[in-house]
């Protein structure tokens, strides 16, 4: 019996060193050497292109509603997950979905509130704009989700609708390799493009 135990301890120690630390450290080394920008989180001047943010002003294109109140990562625990895994505007949270079932009264009420909110901003919402995502901070919307917001943004910024349509088209990423996943628009990049457009005096 002692032999089994001794072998088990030796094997566990080898595993800890090789498959824990050597693997993770060698991986980090290679990652930092080859893909430093990605490995550090795709951080740009205004945030990470992979982490959604809360956009509330009609001057910007909005992302998916993951931010506050009933749309928090885990309403039961009272954690506001919103647009950030750890902390956004002083509110603590972690990544996560609402986990509301397809026939949940809470989901129905939340969605109704979001539809009303979008209508008030002058947007005829698509489903993505009134539903929360899997991570709680989806950085992307579909091109159609951006297009339905064009009247709102045009009115608030004074930029012509056709210029905004060009912007959305220019910022649209096609499905990867032409067939994987959906085509999408990164909301942060889209709004950075919008800011450039404004600075250039339309």
């Amino acid at each position: 019996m002692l032999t089994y135990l001794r072998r088990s301890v030796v094997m566990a120690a080898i595993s800890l060193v090789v498959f824990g630390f050597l693997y993770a450290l060698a991986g980090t080394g290679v990652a930092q050497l080859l893909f430093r920008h990605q490995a550090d989180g795709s951080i740009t001047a205004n945030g990470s292109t992979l982490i959604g943010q809360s956009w509330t002003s009609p001057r910007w294109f909005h992302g998916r509603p993951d931010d506050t109140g009933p749309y928090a990562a885990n309403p039961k625990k009272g954690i506001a997950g919103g647009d950030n895994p750890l902390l956004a505007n002083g509110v603590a949270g972690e990544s996560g979905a609402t986990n509301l079932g397809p026939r949940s009264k809470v989901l129905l009420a939340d969605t109704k509130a979001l539809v009303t909110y979008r209508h008030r901003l002058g947007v005829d919402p698509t489903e993505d704009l009134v539903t929360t995502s899997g991570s709680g901070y989806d950085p992307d919307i579909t091109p159609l989700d951006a297009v339905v917001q064009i009247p709102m943004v045009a009115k608030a910024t004074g930029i012509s609708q056709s210029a905004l349509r060009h912007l959305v088209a220019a910022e649209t990423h096609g499905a990867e390799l032409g067939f994987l996943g959906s085509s999408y628009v990164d909301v942060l990049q889209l709004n950075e493009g919008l800011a450039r457009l404004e600075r250039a005096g339309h």
Partner: protein
Amino acid sequence: MGFLWTIVTLVVALGLTWRYLGSYMAAVFDGRVHFLGAVERPLYRALGTSPDREQTWRRYAISVVAFSGVSFALTYLLLRIQGSLPLNPQHLGAVGPALSFNTAASFLTNTNWQNYGGETTMSYFSQIGALTVQQFVSPAVGIVAAIALVRGFARKESATIGNFWVDLVRCLFYVLLPIAFLAGIVFVGQGAVQTLAGTVSIHDAMNGVTQTIARGPIGFMEAIKQLGTNGGGFLNANSATPYENPTALTNWLSIYLLLAIPFSLTYTFGKLVGSVRQGRALLAAMVLIFGVWVGFTSYSEHQGNPAVAAAGIVHQPTGNMVGKEVRFGDTSSALFAVASTQTSTGSADASYDSFTPMGGFGLLTGMMLGEVTPGGTGTGLYTMLIYAIVAVFIGGLMIGRTPEYLGKKIQAKEVKLAGLGSLVMPLVVLVLTAIAVSVHAGRIGPLNSGPHGFTEILYALTSQGNNNGSAFGGLSGNTPFYNVVGAIDMLIGRFGIMIPALALGGSLAAKNVVPESLGTFRTDNTMFVGLVIGVIVIIGGLTFFPAISLGPIVEQLGHGKFF
């Protein structure tokens, strides 16, 4: 159209992998691969063993249990003293005793059920030293147990079925490590994070948002998490988070990785027993069931969400997007979910709790089939072989002959062991679900009301009993009740099947081979594939039908009703 190409490319890639990874693994476990001999030999010396010292099934099983026990103790200890260990930039404190117990059982059994949010609970040391290590070791234990059972069929009049330590070392170094490392590079290249620096704070001047973003050594953990059908992610929202699964390409790669070894092992099986046709028959049964489930689950998720429709958005061209990420879309998320639930992986690129009733039904029943289509790494193959023995037994009853499988007589002892192996899971899942809904501590768990709340409980115990680890995430699992009950569920679901499988291996290895005759019941043709599918569906379908009816089926039929 895009979804069709996703399927086509996966089929082609997995077909090639089945053929070549399958034969490579056969060579590895036959001891014909030596390119890391310089690493292997000192390891065997340290372990005090060598490839020519083989074990009986009992010694093999004791080695499995001893090694698992030590791994359990070490993982538990590391989580409990997390606060005093290095690599903890967020200064997270010790993990509580009940949660550490559940997590250690979960990672040791290759379940990766997570009652915690990774970014707010686990230090980098714990993620690397306690969790990633088990993500390599636990699938390797599953694979070598399957190989030991296959040797039972391949050998005649042999007292031994291999050497656990040698098999384990070979599996880890020749199979898991190289593939995971290469895949890790791709994940990071696509945008998965891999750093030991702590969180980062950024202020966006455009909207005034200030964020503190969690980071960590994520990308390489992601690679082994999918390859080893583990499923436990670094972050709470698992593969839905862009830092774990940044693009549609990594989503495709995840699906590919988690199906690669379980499917390929059927080729390894065929190769080791000397007839690839036998492996192909098992593969066919797996693929047929898997394909049907992908079909109706993707179709269900492409329908709209009933609550969103009732709120006024009737036209939902992109399907049910509640809890899904835009970059993946509805059908690819459904495909990922089916692959993840039917391989005992349990990773999630969407919120399974928010799937449509029939979509959730697809995921739940996929696990209830016993994780054999294709199942987890190794665990899928040995459970499938147990079902195949049951199928052979039923076939033998129909034609009135002593059943044989691969030339081995299937007698009372083998049928008893196969019966035990196939009934342990449904028994433990249903009994524990009954207990959970009978006590207050169990009933306060669910987030959702009505039938969906019941489904959350049933899903949790099915997932843990099948060592899957995916969740209907609304359930508050981090309570003493669910931590302890879940850990028991996972341990029985793991060892209650693995040990009978090893015993079967030992019993079969000792037998002589009966020469094939005209009257031999063939196990490599369409008839047998149909029989195996029948056994899987009857054991999964009929035992769980009453429970399923109370959950997703009631929810689906309750048109227009909200809970």
